């Protein structure tokens, strides 16, 4: 592959700007040309993915690149490191699946032009979060991600959606405010050395550092749905299913998780973070969110809300791994980060198919759905097993390394928490499957039609990917290894 410096810069810029360019293009196309618009959406989403891949692979190969723009006292810079590369890879790749699913799910809905353009805008924002080279650039794209996803949350135009949108904005802007204060304090301590040259705050000694860390964690914790900052997430489930699947199970919430990891490893560094006692306190916060989230999920009858609370729980798997400050823990966090979205998006995709074909959103009324939509429910079952962390599905590996990390760090109770969470996850989703196949009500619907194929294909592809990567984890392991080497090497 050509890895000349100029080519890398071009890949980086194209990876970042594909989404924004596509969003503008979609906005300018008249509403009637649906096919053309879909083609353009897919084209730009694919171009974003391809160039993010090229950038990420070059980063894994040890060839980073940097683009900076000085404005006043601040500098906006893009400078991907392995952690950013992993996030950029996941986000941009899964975007294509969600885009294809959207073609089916949104086929007869109104407001598609706005939907697709902001769907693409948020791709750019997510890639920007991933590849940001310093704190203020990270903040810029983090804010843009909130703004670009707002129209998607309120897409249904109901009063409920409007209220959820307001909640979404309020929670996320408050979190961003805390981050902004923390960033300004960081700049006062250490200036702006960027992420790639070792921890930003290395060598700084101040009694305020603990509070600074709390401020960062609270700020990013809002998007990472760390309890009790998670309330916007279930509310945001009024959005169309592809949005819930991609943004509120993966991209947006991952931006929060990514921010937390970024702060712990790139801003504070594991040395300073260890001194501040991160590994003594924060894993407990994460562990309680893991259990509380999934227990609340058990009590939800609306399938999407159950999935939302389960997202809250699963995001804290990643945080738990990062907070252990152990190489295996971070590797586990990365494996979880890479493997979990396949299964989670499958669950959401299936929930969307069920809701669209039968009109049912409540689990208690899904009796007999399995008979009518056997393939969908098969994919759902596979993904449900994936949520429990069962071989041969790839999510097993995330959990395996997380447990390894917590035991290696002398924190074996967290291994128990993970095991217990797996069981409760089973209790969450297996009854749904049983209910779907056993129930006697038979809603009238079919598993056929053009849009059905468009919706089912991404779900099936994700299950296949999860199976393959579960059997051959070596495919995704280099990503986790690169990040672990980067921070621990």
């Amino acid at each position, binding site marked *: 592959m050509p890895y000349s410096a100029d080519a890398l810069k071009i890949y980086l810029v194209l990876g970042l700007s594909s989404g924004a360019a596509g969003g503008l293009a979609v906005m300018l196309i008249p509403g009637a040309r649906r096919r053309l618009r879909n083609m353009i959406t897919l084209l730009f989403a694919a171009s974003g993915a391809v160039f993010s891949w090229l950038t990420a692979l070059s980063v894994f190969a040890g060839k980073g690149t940097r683009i900076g723009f*000085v*404005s*006043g*006292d*601040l500098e906006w810079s893009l400078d991907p490191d392995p952690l950013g590369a992993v996030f950029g890879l996941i986000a941009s790749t899964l975007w294509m699946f969600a885009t294809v699913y959207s073609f089916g799910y949104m086929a007869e809905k109104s407001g598609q032009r*706005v939907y697709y353009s902001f769907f693409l805008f948020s791709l750019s924002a997510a890639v920007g979060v991933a590849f940001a080279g310093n704190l*203020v650039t990270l*903040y*810029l794209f983090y*804010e*843009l991600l909130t*703004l670009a996803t*707002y*129209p998607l949350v*309120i897409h249904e*135009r109901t009063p409920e959606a*409007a209220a959820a*949108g*307001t909640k979404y*904005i*309020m929670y996320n*802007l*408050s979190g961003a*405010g*805390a981050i*902004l*204060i923390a960033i*300004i*304090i960081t*700049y*006062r301590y250490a200036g702006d050395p960027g992420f790639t040259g070792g921890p930003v705050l290395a060598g700084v000694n101040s009694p305020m550092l603990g509070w600074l860390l709390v401020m960062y964690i609270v700020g990013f914790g809002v998007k990472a749905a760390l309890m009790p900052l998670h309330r916007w997430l279930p509310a945001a489930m009024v959005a169309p299913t592809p949005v819930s699947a991609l943004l509120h199970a993966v991209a947006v919430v991952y931006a929060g998780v990514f921010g937390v990891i970024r702060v712990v490893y790139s801003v504070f560094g594991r040395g300073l973070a260890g001194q501040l006692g991160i590994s003594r306190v924060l894993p407990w916060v994460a562990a309680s969110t893991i259990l509380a989230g999934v227990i609340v999920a058990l009590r939800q009858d609306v399938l999407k809300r159950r999935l939302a609370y389960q997202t809250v729980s699963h995001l804290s798997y990643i945080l738990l791994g990062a907070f252990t400050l152990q190489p295996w823990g971070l590797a586990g966090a990365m494996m979880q980060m890479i493997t979990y979205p396949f299964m989670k998006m499958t669950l959401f995709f299936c929930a969307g198919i069920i809701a669209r074909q039968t009109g049912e959103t409540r689990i208690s009324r899904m009796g007999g759905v399995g008979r009518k939509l056997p393939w969908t429910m098969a994919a759902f079952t596979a993904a449900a097993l994936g949520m429990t962390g069962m071989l041969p599905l790839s999510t097993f590996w995330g959990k395996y390394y997380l447990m390894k990390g917590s035991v290696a760090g002398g924190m074996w109770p967290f291994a128990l928490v993970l095991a217990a969470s797996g069981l409760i996850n089973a209790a969450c989703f297996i009854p749904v499957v049983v209910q779907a196949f056993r129930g006697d009500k038979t809603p009238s619907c079919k598993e056929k039609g053009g849009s059905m194929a468009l919706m089912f294909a991404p779900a099936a592809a994700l299950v296949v990917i999860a199976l393959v990567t579960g059997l051959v984890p070596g495919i995704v392991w280099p990503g986790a290894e690169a990040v672990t080497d980067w921070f621990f090497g």
Partner: protein
Amino acid sequence: MTAVIADNLPAFVIIVPLFAGVVLPVFARRQRLVEGLVVLAEAAGLAGVGFLAYIVFTHRGTDWVYQMGGWPAPWGIELTVNSLAVFFLFAVMAVSLPIALFTMGNLKDEVGSNKRTARFYTLFLLLVGSLAGMALANDLFNTYVLVEVATLSCCGLVSSRGTPRAAEAAFTYLVLATLASSLVVIGIGFIYVTTGHLNMGFASQGLAQAWQDRPHVVWLAISFVLVGFGLKSALFPLHVWLPDAHSSAPSPASAVLSGLAVKGYMICLLKFLYVVFGPALMKEFSVDRILVLAGMAAIICGAVMALPQDDLKRRLAFSTVSQVGYIYLGFGLMDENGLAGALFYLASHAAIKSTLFLSAGAMIASAGKKKISEMAGIGRKMPLTAAAFTAASLGLIGIPMFSGFIGKWYLIAGSLDTGDFLPTVIIIAGSVLCAAYLFPVIRAMWFETPQKAKQESTVQQECKTAVQHAAEHMPAGPGVPREVRVKDPGAAQKLALILLTAVIFVLGVVPGPFIELARSAAAELLMLR
């Protein structure tokens, strides 16, 4: 000729708008000529300020003191061209030029008749000229005169629509502003009595001495000046007149009142406090604490009061109360970063609030609806106007790459410098509340579809059908209202909105020179240099 202008540039920047304003009524009948003259005067002012900025940048550290008529101080009148003056002049000219542009061709619809247009332009130019003077004047009494000119022009602008509500608002404003002027003049009197000087530099030296001998008089002077200018610039809780006055004025007037006039008084107060009384006296009398507290209260209370307003312009007017709080907060921090941030925020807010009022005015004029709840879907019909409104809103909330973010960045840095954490939290809380009162507007404009008429009874429907039927088959006469097409305003208005949005972006993306200017102004005021 060029040499004459270049040598007397500070005076020209003030005189050109004032003179143009006075001459305008002569051509009142010739609308095009009047408009051209206004824009020409504005452009000349902007060019002059650009040249002044060039001078300040090349001769850094030394002020250009211009003596009117060549008479030296303390007898003559001085104009000081320093970083602060140039910064504020830039804000005034860069924002008032687009506002003037916006009024081209459609001012008659806003104010009623051609006669009123000429009057409006006269007042507008007098206001701009007096604002320019406030930035430059280095003399207490001339500052007062310019403040009076500005106040009376503002009053006229508020009432220029001629509706009873506007008249009432203008009257309230007149009473309070006159009260404020008399407070200011009493304060100036005290300073003059104790020091014997009206020149700011000499008065300042005199006050340092007078403070030892007669502290009570100095205390009275500082409190009269603070309350007087505080009332004029809506320092919380002296803001009561603002929402009525700014929301009942015609939109271009609202833009110039909220965007610039209030800032002029703030700059006057800033000069009185920092230049005349000096940072040491401010600390002695806890003026800094008062400003910070009032600023924080304004940020929160103004935003909370803006939340329930359904009238778009009233919501924006309350937002001004809140935003002015940021600037006062920065004035009170007594810190280079904080003061620079406050000045930057002042310029940023001038551009943003003008954009908001102008675009809101265009929407109100085109759709004939004032309330936010009635504006559903207007963004699709007036995309450019609504886009300008959205960009300005994001700037006000403080999204990076817009001007508000840079201002807030330095304000937060400044409040962290002082070691007090509360202002920092209030700044962020104000941004979140700002999103809370602006996002519903954005949502209504872009993402809501116009509501269908409420369920009507069959009889009403039948009547309506009959009327419609009749309307369709009758020629459109004066009795039958025609359907008004809601669309973007004309080319001049579009250009004005684009220019203002460009200012917001330029300040946000390349803030370098502007923040440098603001910072050197802050350093001069704090006497760090």
